[in-house]
């Protein structure tokens, strides 16, 4: 077993280092026709907030390059979700029946809301951990307050998903502040033209959102190389991982586990391929 929360009283053991990233895989068994969940370490849910959130208005996705020929895309969904109570009503029984543990990704807004959501998720069968999602412009103190709030009202291990541009500022402080693990990183913010081809004389629109691309992998590896050995807690690598060699590189650079993000929409089977590949791969050869 792989331990994602060695400092926590209950721990967070998972059988495989491969997980879907928050926002990529739904809340429960959405992909059950296409992915054998048993090969995964855990299900990381779509983002959940205390109160319901509606989807962003207007266009929500923009692809780099003309006719889908580019290397990535920007998505801005607004993190729509029905709120923690309704998610629990809809998913509790599904989560209980899943063959893998569930990590709920919590949208950390204010300390009080975070605490109330964490309290409601505490004790839910098969929910073994929380992953806190932070806004990109967050300060160190606010991140620590949100972490403390999540830990104060619940007894679940708390993983913090660190914004792409804030790793240097946040990662060491969150580790000192009691985070059980860190997910490095949330996708970076980016802007793309809303349409690849300009339309007549109309002013061109641009979409601001999160960037998903295999081209992020070298940036992720740079972050892992810089931080994994310095942090006293497990690191979960996320961003641009699209193949077994990518996953192996992340583990070799010190990550304890990996998350596959929106790149799995193109090839859901990649989760299973990477998990099965890593199971055959001799992880003992990975240097400490």
């Amino acid at each position: 077993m792989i331990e994602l929360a060695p400092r926590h009283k209950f721990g967070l053991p998972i059988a495989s280092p491969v997980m879907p990233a928050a926002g990529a895989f739904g809340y429960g068994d959405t992909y059950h026709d296409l992915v054998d969940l048993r090969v995964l370490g855990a299900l990381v849910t779509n983002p959940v907030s205390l109160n319901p959130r509606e989807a962003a208005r207007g266009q929500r996705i923009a692809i780099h390059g003309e006719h889908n020929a580019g290397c990535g895309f920007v998505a801005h969904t607004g993190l729509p979700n029905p709120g923690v109570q309704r998610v629990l009503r809809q998913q509790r029984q599904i989560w209980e029946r899943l063959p893998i543990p569930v990590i709920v990704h919590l949208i950390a807004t204010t300390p009080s809301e975070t605490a109330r959501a964490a309290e409601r998720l505490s004790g839910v069968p098969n929910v073994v951990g929380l992953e806190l999602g932070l806004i990109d412009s967050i300060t160190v103190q606010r991140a620590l307050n949100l972490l403390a709030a999540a830990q104060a009202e619940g007894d679940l291990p708390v993983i913090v998903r660190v914004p792409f541009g804030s790793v240097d500022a946040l990662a060491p402080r969150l580790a000192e502040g009691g985070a059980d693990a860190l997910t490095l990183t949330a996708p970076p913010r980016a802007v793309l033209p809303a349409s690849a081809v300009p339309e007549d004389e109309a002013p061109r629109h641009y979409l601001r959102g999160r960037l998903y691309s295999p081209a992020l992998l070298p940036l992720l590896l740079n972050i892992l190389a810089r931080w994994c050995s310095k942090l006293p807690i497990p690191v979960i690598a996320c961003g641009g991982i699209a193949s077994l060699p990518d996953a192996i590189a992340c583990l070799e650079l010190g990550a304890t586990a990996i998350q596959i993000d929106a790149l799995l929409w193109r090839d859901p089977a990649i989760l299973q391929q990477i998990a099965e590949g890593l199971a055959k791969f001799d992880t003992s050869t990975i240097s400490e």
Partner: protein
Amino acid sequence: MVKQQDAVFRQAYPAPPYWVARFDLPHPPGPGGFVLADLGGPLREALFPAAIDANGFAAMLPPRHAATRLLPGATVNMLGPLGQGFRLGDATRLLLVAEAAFLPPLLPLLEAVPAVALVIEAPTRAQLPPPDRFPPAVELTLVTCDGSAGYLGPLESTDPAPANLERVTPRLVELIAWAECACFACASDRYPALAALVRAARIQPAPDFAQALVQVPMPCGVGACEVCRINTRAGEKHACTDGPVFDIARTFAPSL
């Protein structure tokens, strides 16, 4: 059950203003359903069938679409069939209404029932498909928004028409009253106004009397990504799994 299937690309040829791309596929989607094709880009692309047979389907795509650059015999991985397609029931009189750019997914329905009326709207004459492309039995109504051919659009407009032009809206209301089932394929933001038109022609339309195909980006196809959420009278729905075909009156009509 959603599955990954390997399709074989057969050919692509121009059929202005579209290109036709033909695929062999063991389990093709039905009318209004779709597959997500891996064409090499960062996301799969939704392909709606414009023609379906026992061996596969043909999609009608914009010129220079990635599928038109495939080599015959190429294997294309497809996810699907996906979505809830059109439900015609026992209808014998079918009305099809489309903007020209959104028309292809309605084409498999042209000969689905004995009597079909087709209304196509385009900004101008050059963007209308040639009338001789449709079966002779189909009653065709052409609409242009600049009045360059056929009736004057847009479909839902009630503004008075200039002299020498005839507004399409009364004709559309007549056809809705005539039909036993109506299928729409337009930009999603037009559906509330079109739903109001359906309500004007039919006081209490039966469930699924009028259906609307929502064509928005659907990256995952299974309801995981939240990109394809649409606003409906019953709250937000996923176009990919709850649709992409919706009951227009119950989904988009303004509250009474």
